[in-house]
Structures are given as C-alpha cells and as structure tokens.
C-alpha cells in the first residue's frame, strides 16, 4: 500500500478538518502578504537593469544572498498556497461530486507541495554548492 510521508499525511488531515472560513482566511492573508513581498522583490530588482537581473550569474548571486533567497522562498510558499487554493476553488465550481472534490483538494495540496519542493530545491542546490 502506498504510504505518504508523515508531513503530507498531516497536511492532508489538516486540510480535511479545516473549515472553509479558515482556508479563505489563509487565502486572503497569503494574497496580502504576497503583494507586500512581491513589491519588495520588484524594488530590489529595480536596482539592476532588467536584462542584467536575468543573467545566469546574477540569478545565482541572488540565490546565494540568503536574506533575498529567504524572501523568494517565502514568496514561493505564499503564492503556491494562494494559487493552488484558487485553482481548487475554480475546479470545485466547475464540477461537483464527493470523489471529484476529494481528488481536487488532495491534488492541489500535492501540487502545492511539489512546486514548493521544486523551488526550494533550486535555492538549496545553489547554497550547497551543487550548482
């Protein structure tokens, strides 16, 4: 039988038990926080030219600067939570049914974890010298 990691099981259990109002408070909170942090992120990008900021070396340097890498990580988490919950809401309105709704909820949580893990992996690889 497929056994999920403990944190995934814990998260799914939490999502299952959460009331919709709790989820929506998180949804609104992540949106507000993301607006603030993305504004900081854009301001920091403005210190460099647009083309320059997208150069490979610049990106690697940014990831190596831990406070900024932390900011990017937080933005990734906030936008992943907000975005995948938004997707869940859209999909729930598109079609109804117990199995479908469970699949959508679990699928969105899994996709959110996957995206955060993939984004974090890049930052970790840069800072551990793997890149």
């Amino acid at each position, binding site marked *: 039988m497929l056994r999920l990691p403990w944190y995934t099981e814990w998260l799914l259990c939490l999502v299952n038990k959460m009331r919709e109002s709790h*989820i929506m408070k998180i949804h609104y909170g992540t949106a507000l926080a993301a607006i603030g942090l993305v504004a900081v992120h854009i301001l920091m990008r403005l210190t460099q030219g647009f083309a320059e900021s997208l150069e490979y070396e610049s990106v690697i340097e940014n990831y190596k600067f831990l406070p900024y890498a932390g900011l990017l990580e937080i933005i990734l988490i906030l936008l992943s939570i907000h975005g995948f919950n938004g997707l869940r809401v859209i999909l729930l309105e598109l079609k109804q049914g117990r199995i479908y709704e469970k699949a959508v909820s679990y699928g969105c949580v899994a996709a959110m974890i996957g995206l955060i893990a993939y984004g974090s992996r890049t930052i970790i690889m840069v800072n551990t010298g793997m890149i």
Partner: protein
Amino acid sequence: MAQTPSIAEEKTSSAVSSSKSITLRIARFNPQKDSDTSFMEFKVPVEKWTTVLEAILDVKKHFDHSVAVRYSCRQATCGSCGMVINGKPRLACFTKISELNSDTVTVEPMHNFPIIRDLAVRFDRLFNSHHKVKPYLIRDDTDVSSDTKEILQSPEELEQFIQFSNCIKCGLCNSACPTMATDSSFVGPQALAQAYRYVADSRDKGKDNRLKIIDESHGIWRCHFAGSCSQVCPKGVDPAMGIQLLRGYMLGFRS
C-alpha cells in the same frame, strides 16, 4: 336587477379596444418529449397597464391553453411567477409590457432551475437550501411565559435585518446568480440572505450554528460578489450585501 356577466362573457384584454399589440415569444419545453427548447410566437394586444403575466394568460385563454406557467397572487407577493423576461429574471405579474420598451417580449423559464414544463420550474433546491439555514428564530426559551410576553427590539436592531424579511422566495436571485449556474451544490443567494436575516436578528441565538452550516466548500465563500442577485430582486432585498455582512461575522469583523 343588474345582471352579472358569466365567465364566458367576461371581458379580457383582447376583447377591450387596444392601441398596440406586441409579439410574445414563449419558450416551450417538455422534458418528457422535447430534446430542446423551442419558441412559439403570439400577437397579443396590450394596454399601457398590461403585465407580462396578463399577456401569457391571454395566450392561454385565446391561443394555446397548454402553455405551462405558475402564478397565484398577481401582486408580487407570492413569488410564483418568476421567469426570464427579455433576458432578465423578473416577476411576470410585476413587469408591465410598456416598461420593457420592446415590440417583442421573450419569456423563458428561470435559469438554474430544472424545468417542469415551459415556464414552470422546480423549486426543490431553493426550498432545501432555505430550510438548511434554519430560517426561524433559535432560542432556548421557546415557551413564552407570562413575564416574557414580548422579546423587545429597538428600531436600530430591526434596521439590521428588516429588508431581508421582505424575501418572497421567488428564486429570481438564484436564477441570476452566475455561481448557481456552474455549482450545483452552491447554497445560493436566497438562502444566504435568509441566513443573514436571522444571524443579524437580536432575538436569535443560533448564530454559531447557522454560520457553521454555511461555512462549507459550497457555502458562502463561493459567492464572487457579481451582485446580479440584488439587481433582480423585486422586493428590494440586497442579498449580495447580506452575504458580505455574513462574511464579516466569519472573518471576525462583526460579532
């Protein structure tokens, strides 16, 4: 002695002199026989005061008695004759043809309701959702004793919910709601407005219970505040505002 005219002699709108006539397009659909909706057109004489319901009844009386339509009070009180008139959900008895400013009036059954036949729709979902939000005062002291004959309320407290008491359950708000069109489990603006009506009532003690009922995946959070429910209400109820005020309770802005 004055003679009372028999029913057969009774004058109808088509019998009296009419200065104008319009084309009434009626949607015809019988789920047991038809695969798609078709429209039948009738030339109907109208006066300045003729309502859409009167025109439909004129068609039933003189052209085609098989047109299915639900109606009762003819004075916007019972909420039976809701239908889509020229693309907008309205009460047929409360809509004068002259105010539509069109020579063609198209009537269709309300959207987001299963059709029984032609213009008559099923109200099961609306009534189930309405029942679900417990549309009555919840109190521990249900028996009125001699010393508590009345549960007093100030005008300010009454003002909090009085407009929502005007709901006649006609279903026009649910018909206009875009979320109702896609989400078959959505509780709907009518039930949510009624939930607010009782939550905001100072005499009610069932707030937590009621908020819990609507706080589910197809509950209050699926409203996207399109506001079309408030646009079409014939009684001036503002369900969209009620929903936002209810959200205030859930987000902790109101208590």
